[in-house]
């Protein structure tokens, strides 16, 4: 007798529908699984046999063949257990077939028949909803995650017996739980973020460093890549960690995307992501760790930072190939991984936030303190320079603060900065709606000519900067982008000279380098 169940398998960030077909016929007792299954799936035979018997059902003493279709998709992970077990039960007439056609099953089985959570519930729920399934049965621990998807009945099953009860038309194991509020309106979203950030670090913890704080706000407003440099202890990391608290909230679509990625990568998800992801990998990370591709379906930090912030502390300590690997994602907002036998394109639109010491000891410019030789400094600069620095729009230097600065009032709080940033982003989005980009950082030269017109004095300044050799063509683009953002923060439709002046002061290249390298 033949039975069929629906399940989903995860391949990288993609979720594939799997049709689980089980055929039971006369023959020597055997249980075979075919259809490009990985080890975890093949081991499912033992788990399923034990679970069926321990749950009080009967395992057929005949020849059982399970086929996972389509046959050319690699199936991985133990999430197919529940579907396989139910299909076996249906094929032996212990369960009705009808409900199995409508409900997708997702979960790992224990030997006692208990249903265990598997990673990626949100993605599976998303896929089930799109595949037109009426419901998704999964472990209680995954239920909250799956409920984040609208238009899908989430069936909580604790045990194989509960699954059987549901498939026979009975109730599931869910306590009467209200749906997790999916944030609706924009103001609601902002409140959601505010409450999410309340507990986190706040910009008002930062004393002094007013210009660095301003730079961070500008970067957040235009989604510009930013480099913080300063001596150890100046507060680079502290400042960086606070950037998520001022970034605008994720839109609903972005939130689903982000939550899905994080769910697939195995983090527990209880609600849609509210705040943007903040990833801070240690500098010993490899290129594969950063962009992905280490093993099949393994995504890198840049993907986990999608729609959020990638923070590289001690930028000069990262291996050169690792940083080189960032070029594509920084440029295209995606990363294409091609390996033998498979290729995948992952989304990776993030804001890069880098921090570094100005020299190996960290005290360069602090006159008395820096003891680095010219050679060390040159090597340090070489590590920082190059294609990565080309993609950084603005840089800010921090100095070790004077004691009285630490007592001074903070420049701003996260709540205030967040409002400013959100307003500036709304202005950008409205202006750039026709161009298909959302933030100033993504403007190209043509859009800049159109949307970042300078006033008379500003044009004069830009010419001066070009003449003085302070700006390359690419540098000019970056300065204009930042100037546009500064004007947006000031609610100015025109880019004024003072916006350009501030952007020039925040441009990444230090001019003294020419002096040193001379």
């Amino acid at each position, binding site marked *: 007798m033949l039975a069929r169940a629906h399940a989903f398998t995860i391949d990288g960030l993609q979720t594939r529908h799997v049709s689980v077909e089980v055929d039971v016929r006369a023959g020597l007792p055997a249980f075979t699984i075919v259809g490009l299954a990985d080890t975890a799936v093949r081991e499912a035979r033992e788990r399923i046999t034990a679970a069926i018997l321990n749950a009080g059902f009967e395992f057929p003493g005949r020849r059982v063949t399970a086929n996972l279709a389509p046959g050319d998709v690699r199936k991985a992970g133990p999430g197919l257990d529940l579907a396989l077990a139910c299909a076996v039960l249906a094929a032996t007439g212990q369960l009705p077939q009808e409900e199995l056609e409508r409900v997708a099953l997702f979960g790992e089985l224990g030997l006692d028949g208990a249903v265990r959570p598997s990673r990626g519930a949100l993605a599976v729920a998303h896929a089930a909803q799109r595949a037109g399934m009426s419901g998704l049965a999964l472990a209680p621990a995954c239920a909250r995650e799956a409920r984040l998807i609208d238009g899908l009945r989430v069936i909580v099953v604790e045990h194989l017996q509960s699954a059987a009860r549901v498939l026979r038309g009975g109730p599931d194991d869910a306590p009467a739980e209200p749906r997790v509020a999916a944030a609706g309106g924009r103001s609601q979203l902002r409140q959601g973020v505010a409450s999410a950030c309340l507990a986190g670090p706040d910009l008002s913890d930062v004393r*002094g*460093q*007013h*210009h660095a704080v301003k730079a961070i706000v500008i970067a957040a407003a235009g989604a510009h890549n930013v480099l913080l*440099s*300063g*001596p150890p202890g100046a507060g680079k990391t502290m400042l960086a960690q606070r950037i998520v608290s001022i970034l605008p909230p994720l839109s609903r679509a972005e939130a689903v995307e982000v939550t899905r990625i994080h769910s697939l990568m195995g983090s527990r998800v209880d609600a849609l992501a509210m705040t943007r992801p903040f990833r801070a990998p240690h500098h010993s990370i490899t290129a594969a760790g950063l962009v992905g591709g280490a093993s099949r379906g393994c995504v890198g930090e840049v993907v986990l930072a999608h729609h959020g912030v990638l923070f590289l502390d001690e930028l000069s300590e990262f291996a050169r190939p690792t940083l080189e690997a960032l070029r594509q994602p920084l440029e295209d907002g995606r990363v294409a991984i091609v390996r033998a036998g498979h290729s995948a394109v992952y989304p990776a639109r993030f804001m890069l936030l880098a921090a570094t010491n*100005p*020299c190996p000891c960290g*005290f*360069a*410019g*602090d*006159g*008395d303190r*820096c*003891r*680095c*030789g*010219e*050679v060390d400094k*040159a090597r340090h600069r070489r590590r920082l320079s190059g294609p990565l620095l080309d993609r950084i729009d603005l840089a*800010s*230097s*921090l*100095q070790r*603060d*004077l004691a*009285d*600065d630490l007592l001074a009032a903070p420049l701003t709080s996260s709540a205030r900065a967040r409002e400013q940033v959100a307003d500036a982003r709304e202005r950008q989005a409205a202006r750039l709606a026709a161009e298909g980009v959302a933030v100033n950082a993504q403007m190209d030269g043509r859009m800049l000519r159109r949307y970042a017109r300078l006033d008379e004095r500003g044009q004069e*300044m830009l010419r*001066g*900067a070009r003449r*003085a050799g*302070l700006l390359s063509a690419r540098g000019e683009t970056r300065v204009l982008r930042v100037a546009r953002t500064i004007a947006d923060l000031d609610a100015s439709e025109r880019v004024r*000279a*003072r916006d*350009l*002046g*501030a952007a*020039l*002061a*925040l441009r990444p290249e*230090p*001019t*003294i380098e020419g*002096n*040193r390298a*001379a």
Partner: protein
Amino acid sequence: MSSSSSRPTPRPSGACAGCRRRSWLLSALSGPLEYCARDRERLLELLALPDMELLEAVAGRRANELRERYERFRGDEPAPVHGPARTNQPARTNQPARTNQPARTNQPARTNGLETVCGHGRGYPRSLDGRCSPHMLEVAGGAARLARLTAAPVVAIVGSRSPSDYGIEIARSLARGLSASGVSVVASFTDGIAAATHAGALDAGAGSVAVLGGGLGVACPQRRRSLYERVVRGGCAVSELPHDCAGRRWGQLASERIVVELALLTVMVEAEATAGDLAPARIALALGRTVAAIPGRVTSPLSRGTHALLMDGASLVRGPRDVLELLYVPGGPRSSAGAPRSSMGGPRSPVGAPRSPQGAPRSRAPDGADRHDESCDPHAGLAPALRTTLAHVGAGRDTPDKLTRAGLDGSELLLALSELELMGLIVRGDGGRYLPRHRVDE
């Protein structure tokens, strides 16, 4: 001298055989001299000795062999190569077999366009007439150009090898200003102040004289190769050693004496109070040349050496103008024993503007900027906001945060800083600090 065929035959105006032999001898004794060079004074004494005495003094067991070769010297012998000098180890008997190998270097010796000059021929710098002056110089960039550059007043700019941005900027602007005024600058060819000096002279489109501590063909490290080539294009590089003699520490010390001797006036830009950093000043004083120094912050160790010189009576220099005054005051530059202190009583610079106690915010500009030096204030035409900002930066409030604390308007501040930077009045240094830039037309 190399036997390489690419080397042009010495011109009639080249160094005489005796001086070339001296140069060869120095390179042959390079190893033993390195050992002796732990003591600067002793090195200078050794370099003052005539050939044979020098040979006796340092050659040790190889004295006889070297003496023989010295006497056979005809001007085309390759310099012998030594390992690191280890006189406590017995010389190996197979040593002579190795001495005829060419210098062990990673790069081929560059010999094109090298000329030699010595005190017995034309084109030798007049000022090199001291007790321990070099006998001969190899010149890249042309002996004629060296003669032209040293015919003008020559100023040596010396200082630390790892200076602050301030030191680099000062050295560069000083060299720029002096070169533009027709004064030749000379410096060694090390990192830091020396490199900035040459860059400054090149900025002004003039040539400088670089004194290398090793042979011209091999002593320039790769990272300064492009600077070397620019210097040789516009000015010249000199060395007292044959072009294939690898650079050593003693050569560096010896080159300092040439730098100082070439110049009428030695300006120390930034130096720690160590024997190494202050050596050029000591040599200059011993030669009776004028020593001048640029002041820095009293808290900076990098200015301790220069401040010590100033305390001892060196002339205080704030820019090219002060140097020119020192050079052209009636009677010419005096030795530092009677250093013209009058220059210290002159107009005060805004750098010295007083700071209120506890660094409390001051909303008004330091008065010094306006009150003094009005006749030649180069920034008189600036907008008031820019002038105020510039004065504050000059007074050491060098970061945007410090400037805001000093009461400048935060929103216009960055604009002012950018405008000043575009005008070339300030530059951005390490750590995001702004430095005032000296104007050449001061």
